[in-house]
Structure formats: C-alpha cells, structure tokens
C-alpha cells in the first residue's frame, strides 16, 4: 500500500502546475467554508448570548396554562408564591439567580399626549446582572441605581417612546393600565433613564419600571414569569427538564424556544452556509474531475501498460483514488492552515460589521475557531475530492488494453 501511495504521490506532482491550480481551488474552498463557518458560529454565539442576557434569560417559568389559555384580565395566568418558587429553583445546580418579571401594557401620558406602551416590571439589580452588556442606557440611569430613587416610582423609557413624549430625565409621566381585577389604575412616575433596545420597533413602545411598582399599578402580587439565569448556556435543557419534573404546575420555556429572531437567523445562516457548501462542493468536484480526466487522458498508454503487466482493474481504480485522496488531504490541510491564519488576522483587525436589518447597532467581525468546523471541512473537502475522482478512475480502470496501448 505504501508503495502504491508513493506512486500516487509521484503521479500527483507529475504536472505540478495543474496540481497546484487544483490544490488552490481546494484551499480556497476549505478557507471559505471555515471562515464562513467560524463567522456563523460567532454570530450564533453572540446572538444567543445577547438574546439570553438581553431579554430572555436561559429559562422562563410560566404558569402551565399560560400558553394554552387566554387571559381575560392581566396576570390571570401569572405565577403565585414567587419567593417559594424562586427558593426551590435556586436549589438546582447551575442556577445563578432567578428574577421575576411582569409584562403589561397600557397608556403613558405627559399630560398633552398619550402613547400606548409595552411595559415590563423588573427587579433592577438582577436585570443589570443579566444584561450587563446588552442593556444600553443612553441617558440618565437604570432603575434603582440611587437610593433616593427608591422612594418614588421610576421609569426608564426606550428611546423612541421618550422622543414621542418629549420626555427628559426627571420629568414626571402618568402610566395608565387595567388592574388584575379589571379596573383602571394610574400612577405618576419619574423618568430615570432613556435606553435603547437595539430594535427600532421595540424602541417606539418599550418601558421598564420596578417590579413592586408594577405590582402596585396592576394591584397584584403575581408575576408574569420567572427568569432563570444559569452559569452555562449548555445546561439549559438539563435544568429546564429538571424544573418541569420537580414543579408540574409550571412550564419551563427554553431560551431557544422563545427566541424567534435567533431561530430565524440560525435558519437563514444555515441555509446560506449549506448553499455555500454546495457551491464549493460543485467547484471542487468539477475542478478535481477535470484534473483527473486530463491526467488519465495523458496517461492512457501508461494505464494500458499497467493493465498489460498484470494490474487488476480494481488496483488501478484504487491507485487513482489514492491520487484524489492525496490532493484532497493536501488541499484541505493547507486550507485549514490558511483559514486559521486569516481568522486570526481578522480577529485582531478590529473590523466592525454594519448593523443588521432590524437593529441599530453594528457588531465586531470575529471568526470563531470551531474545532468541529475545521474537522468537518477537512472531511468534506477530502471526501469530495475522492468522490470526484471516482468517475475518471472508473473510466481509467475500464479502458480496453489494446486501445490504451495504441493511444498517442
């Protein structure tokens, strides 16, 4: 086998220029796939972490009927006995902390103008722990950051909503909503800060107030959900399953079940990556097949000689597959190395990508070094090259000896 491998190696480098051109196609293909795969992995990682730490947490605990029934009144299907539930969930391994949220809606008024809002009652200190990098307070401060602010109800407004109400830090606004028993209630509230969600449509309507203020406004002790934050994203499924097993009256929603934008991006990027992979597969197949066809054409007489001296057709086929394997392995290895170097250069270059559709913020261009992508691309490029050699190799192995010997 080693001798035939050596022969294949010599044949591969018989026409160096052609082999180098084919090799460059493989290197280009491997590099493109690894960079694209690394970029997509970075995007998925960044997007999943910003989704988790910006909004969702790892797991959200709801009343078990929350998704199957409609609420007739606010928080009718909310969670009760929050402190006990929090305490029990904190006993689970990998749980960093839990926090309650109330989702509600209503009207916010500056006296002259009323605007519909989507409100969230939060535990400020824990929200800051969750979204230490994702929450972008543009003006003022976040909720409860100064002790005196705790004496009066505060609100932070998303940028678009603040602009719509011409609200400034320190202004007083009025929140109006329906309480949990169906009555109307209102609350005067001070603007503590203005923030950006990064999503223009959401910036037009969003606001946050303290959880206790929201409970007071809605006249309830319930919350909409409990957000569970873990120390490792990979543990999400295990912890969620454990919570559902221990607490049959709740539903534990995993972050990826709730992250519609993230899932849409994953589907889109996977499609793009698949399409890119297909294009590169076709290029590699055409390039390698063409090289092998040319090689076989040039070596027809030699193939006839090899058959004449007793080489079996199977042996000849295997010899050609060795040649494909050698080109594939060399091309893939050089491609891996090239991709690694390029990814390192790009990661250190500090390039910023423009803001994606639906967002107001750009993000750094980074390429993750994903071992599985490197291995996958190596296998794909090598196997594709071998597969593209099969038809020319079969053709060679089926040559009629006297015709091959007579080939000029």
């Amino acid at each position, binding site marked *: 086998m080693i001798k035939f491998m050596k022969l294949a190696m010599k044949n591969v480098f*018989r026409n160096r220029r052609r082999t180098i051109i084919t090799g460059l196609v493989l290197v280009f293909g491997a590099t493109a796939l690894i960079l694209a795969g690394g970029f997509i992995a970075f995007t998925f990682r960044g997007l999943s972490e910003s989704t988790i730490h910006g909004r969702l947490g790892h797991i959200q605990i709801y009343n078990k009927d929350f998704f199957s029934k409609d609420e007739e009144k606010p928080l009718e299907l909310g969670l009760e006995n929050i402190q006990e539930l929090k305490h029990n969930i904190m006993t689970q391994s990998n749980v960093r902390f839990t926090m309650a949220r109330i989702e509600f809606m209503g009207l916010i008024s500056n006296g002259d103008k009323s605007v519909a809002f989507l409100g969230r009652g939060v535990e400020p200190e824990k929200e800051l722990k969750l979204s230490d990098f994702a929450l972008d307070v543009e003006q003022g401060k976040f909720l409860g950051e100064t002790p005196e602010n705790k004496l009066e109800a505060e609100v932070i407004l998303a940028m678009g909503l603040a602009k719509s109400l011409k609200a400034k830090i320190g202004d007083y606004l009025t929140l109006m909503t329906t309480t949990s028993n169906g009555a109307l209630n209102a609350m005067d509230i001070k603007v503590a800060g203005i923030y950006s969600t990064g999503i223009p449509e959401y910036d037009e309507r969003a606001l946050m107030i303290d959880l206790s203020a929201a409970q007071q406004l809605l006249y309830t002790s319930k919350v909409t959900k409990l957000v569970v934050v873990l120390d490792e994203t990979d543990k999400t499924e295990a912890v969620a399953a454990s919570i559902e097993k221990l607490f049959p009256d709740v539903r534990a929603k995993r972050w990826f079940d709730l992250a519609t934008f993230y899932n849409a991006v994953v589907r889109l990027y996977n499609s793009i990556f698949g399409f890119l992979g297909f294009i590169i597969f076709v290029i590699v197949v055409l390039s390698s097949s063409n090289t092998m066809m040319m090689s076989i054409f040039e070596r027809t007489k*030699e193939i006839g000689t090899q058959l004449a001296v*007793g080489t*079996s*057709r199977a*042996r000849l086929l295997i010899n050609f597959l060795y040649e494909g394997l050698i080109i594939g392995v060399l091309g893939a290895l050089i491609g891996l190395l090239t991709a690694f170097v390029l990814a390192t250069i790009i990661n250190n270059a500090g390039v910023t990508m423009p803001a994606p559709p639906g967002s107001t913020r750009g993000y750094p261009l980074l390429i993750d070094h994903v071992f599985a992508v490197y291995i996958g691309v190596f296998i794909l490029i090598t196997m594709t090259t071998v597969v593209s050699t099969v038809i020319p190799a079969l053709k060679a192995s089926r040559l009629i000896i006297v015709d091959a*010997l007579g080939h000029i």
Partner: protein
Amino acid sequence: MDLLISADSLVKTYMLGKTEVPALRGLTIGIDYGEFTVISGPSGSGKTTLLNLLGLLDSPTTGSVLLEGSEIKYDGLSNLHNIRLEKLGYIFQTFNLIPVLTAYENIEYPLLLTKKSSSMRKQLVEKMLREVKLWEFRRHKPNELSGGQRQRVAIARALVNSPRIVLADEPTANIDSVTASEVLDLMRSLNEEEKVTFLFSTHDPQVLRYARRIVKIHDGMLVNGQLK
C-alpha cells in the same frame, strides 16, 4: 505434453466505422516451451493483433487460445490480470516505462502486484538489474536513460516475475542497430541460459536473423511457421 501457448482458428475483426476489417482470418499456431520465435509479415498483416491475442491483451472474435493446455475464458470472471501477471511478460515497441518511477521501481512494479515480501522483491529486482547490466542506472528515471537502456529496463520488468513466455512487439523499432544487437543478444542469452520463451512480432531483418523459428503471416493468415 501440452504446448506452452496455442491458438486455434483465431478470427479477429475490427470495426472501422460501419465497415468490418478482418485482422486475423482463422489462424492456428502453437508455441512450445523455450522457443525464440518471430512472427513476421508486412504492415497490416496481423502480427500485433496475433501477439495481443496470444498475450491475452485482447479477445478473439472467434477461435480459442490455450495456455499450458487450458482454454482462456474471456467472460470477465476469469482473472486474466493474474495470468498476465504470473505467466506472461511484455516488451513494447516504445518501452512503455512509467516515467515517474526509477529503473529500479519500474522493474519492481509487477512484483508489487504479487504477495512477495519486500526483501524478496529487492533480491529479484537487484538480480534483474545486474542481468540487464543496469545496476549503475537503477536510480535513473526513464527520461535519463538511452533507448537501449530503457528497453533493457522493459526486458527486466517483463522477466522479473519469471513468466512462461515473453511477448515482444517490435522491440527494436525505436533503437539504433547497435543497441538493437545488444538487446537481442541479451534476450537470446536469456533464452539459452534461463530457458525463457520469447515470441516477437517484427519485420526487422536484424531480429529475423536472431530467430530460431519464423512464423510468416499475410493478410491475417499463416503463410508458414517453420524452424529455420
């Protein structure tokens, strides 16, 4: 005792477009062990076709070939490549060496197809290199060798597996007369000393002088096949 190789009523017809071109028209021939025989005839008489059929490189349209008394089957099930490997050796007009391999490796190539150990292969190749007087050139590639040296490598490659018969198609056609004499002397000595059977196709008078038996064919038929 069976002949080494024999052919009975061989017919070979080629298609040239839609036209049938007969190359052999019912030719019968027998070659015995130890012969040094030349198939002679003008161009287009069917020499190479006969050699190809006797060397199992091609199949007849009708008729049969027997090797050591066994009829050759062309049904795709028979391991003809094994017969070619173990019992037949070939020398070609244009040497047909593998250009990326050295003289040593070219001679070794048929042995790689067998189950011989590397030490056995080494021993056999070195013996052949010495016999064909190419020991000093063992690391040279074909393009670094003269025509005569290349043909001697081809002879060594044909003989390294100790075949029953060596078939040589116009072996002196691409070498000068002095080199041709050297090559023919070598083959003749191998025939006399090692009892290797040789079957040539040629119309080179120089080769004919070396032959012990000349088989003349014309238009695909045997004219005569007498001993000299």
